[in-house]
């Protein structure tokens, strides 16, 4: 157990995997000499040298493709997409190549690569550097998607992702890099992919979060008056832990999914659609989604904070759901919201 910031936990996870397995290599823009734009590869170049830790040209398609080729021939590359939006120039390699190689080789070729990317709003980076963009990857069979929610699972999920024989996208909420927490290091700290965590248990509703919204959901549940919640951190978004969510919803009868993304196309819709199909009879209220609006991430500090769902808003929506048994309007649908 060690106390560290989330970016340190990521660097520690990579370093531990590199120590155990000489096939693990790291590359990306400014990840070597500068130790990562977000310091997530602190110390790696010094310890593992320039053969295994490399800076790349600004060429996401190029180095993502190189990761595919390296992984297909025996290495376990860990690459970094500095801001997830940059996948827009490289998505082909992840979704159309890496994720299909197992299938397209009759199961012979494995592509054990990790694509780490920083995601999310809250730091004033503007609308081309603040999104989560998991919708680009959800629905790509053959690809796993992990979303980090803090130092602890940053370590555990990153190690598991590197050990996985499939291509894994690891999405790291940028706003959490500087957050400190207790981390179980070493083999016991590894967190299996595909399993949700339930940091808080309760009775009245199931709050599902992933990535940055776990903190939001926990905040809402923590301050709640008059109700208690199961707070589920999906951890792995693809494949997500259907059992954990269904078990909880069957007990609580209510579901709220908290997402950082715009309402349209968000991952929560998948959760809701599966839950209504599988547990309709157990529902005592409509499952709701608490998301950002269908707009670009604005720049100004207050606007950006308004854009993101926060604990008070989540608590308010849940309270209203419990009180009325109906889906409450989103904040932007309420009278006077826009003045």
């Amino acid at each position, binding site marked *: 157990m060690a106390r560290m910031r989330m970016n340190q936990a990521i660097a520690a996870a990579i370093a531990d995997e590199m120590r155990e397995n000489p096939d693990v290599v790291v590359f990306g*823009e*400014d990840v070597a*000499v*500068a130790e990562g*734009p977000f310091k997530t590869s602190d110390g790696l170049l010094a310890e593992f040298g320039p053969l295994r830790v490399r*800076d*790349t*040209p*600004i*060429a*996401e*398609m*190029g180095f993502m493709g190189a990761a595919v080729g390296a992984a297909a021939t025996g290495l376990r590359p860990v690459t970094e997409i500095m801001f997830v*939006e*940059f996948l*827009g*120039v490289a998505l082909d390699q992840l979704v159309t190549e890496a994720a299909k190689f197992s299938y397209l080789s009759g199961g012979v070729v494995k592509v054990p690569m990790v694509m780490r990317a920083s995601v999310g709003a809250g*730091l*004033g*980076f*503007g*609308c*081309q*550097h603040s999104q989560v963009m998991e919708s680009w990857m959800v629905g790509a069979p053959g690809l796993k998607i992990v979303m980090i929610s803090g130092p602890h699972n940053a370590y555990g999920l990153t190690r598991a992702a590197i050990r996985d024989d499939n291509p894994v996208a690891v999405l790291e909420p940028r706003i959490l890099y500087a957050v400190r927490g207790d981390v179980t290091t070493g083999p016991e700290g590894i967190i299996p992919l595909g399993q949700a965590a339930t940091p808080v248990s309760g009775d009245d509703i199931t709050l599902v979060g992933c990535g940055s919204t776990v903190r939001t959901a926990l905040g809402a549940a923590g301050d709640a008056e008059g109700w208690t919640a199961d707070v589920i951190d999906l951890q792995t978004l693809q494949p997500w832990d259907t059992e954990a969510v269904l078990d909880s919803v069957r007990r609580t009868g209510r579901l709220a999914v908290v997402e950082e993304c715009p309402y349209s196309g968000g991952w929560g819709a998948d959760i809701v659609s599966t839950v209504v199909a599988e547990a309709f009879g157990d529902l005592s209220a409509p499952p709701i989604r608490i998301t950002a*609006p*269908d*707009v*670009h991430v*604005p*720049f*100004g*500090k*207050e*606007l950006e904070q*308004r*854009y993101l769902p926060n604990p008070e808003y989540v608590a308010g929506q849940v309270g209203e759901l419990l009180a009325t048994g109906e889906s409450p309007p989103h904040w*932007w649908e309420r009278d006077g*919201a*826009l*003045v």
Partner: protein
Amino acid sequence: MSSDVLARREAVRSDRTARYERMVEIRTLEDAVRGLFAEGLVHGTTHTCQGQEAVAVGVASALRPTDTVCCTYRGHGHAMALGMTPLQVCGEIMGRVVGSIGGVGGSMHLCDTSIGLLPTFAIVGAGVPVAAGAALTAQVRGTDDVAVSLFGDGAANIGAFHEGINLAAIWKLPAIFICENNQYGEYSPIATTTPIANIADRAGSYGIPGEVVDGQDVDAVNAAVEAAAARARAGDGPSLLEMKTYRYAGHSRSDTAPYRPEGEFDEWYERDPIATFGARLVAEGLLAESDVDAIAARISGEVDAAIDEVKAAASPGVASMFENILA
């Protein structure tokens, strides 16, 4: 605003002294911007262009307001060279309604189509094919406008660079591709990412002219862009110009550039584009020695006033988040 902006644009087009003043203005604002961030008055990040002012002003001086410019996140200098006011630039950086797009974009996102500036690009390389598209408009409509893509040395390794220039070449579009080689892509020196010394040599891959230009000499930049623009307007197709320049500050807000070799900055600073050009104007008799300090003092005052105006301006309201999503 717009007539002010156009007058500022016209000034750098017609008057070398105005070019000098604009370079001073850019430097002054950029220094102030770094200060604002250092003081914690702005959130987010910023990419300033101290040291590269001759490129910005040299390019703008050779273009018409009806030409189109696709520029990067390192765009404050270019925007001002094209005519944007310190108020608009700083307003956007600080996220106020007086900003270029009303304060919802931030430092990386400036735009003013009255001077030909499309929304600046925060994605490396993205502006290269977009400029080809703007040049296509000119070609289809039979105007003699040109489109300019400004990008960094690091951007020369991304696919969009290759695809955009190739497309412009095969269609003989009136475009000018201008690489501002400031020696670094983020924290990486160009030699670690690019296996050749001159990006301009990549012109050979597309059968178009490529030229290395002294990016610290505003006259040289102006001349090279004038020539490329003339070629493009005459229907002879695109060119690739490489401006050798240097970024005085770090890559962005938080970068102190610890990776720079000892002495490198000093060497470039000796050929500071503003000092050099000032001295030349003095030698040519276009400026008096005393003008140099007077200009600096005046512009410093103007920039301070603009910043004060920004500080007093409102932030955009919640409604702005929902505006301009769809046309």
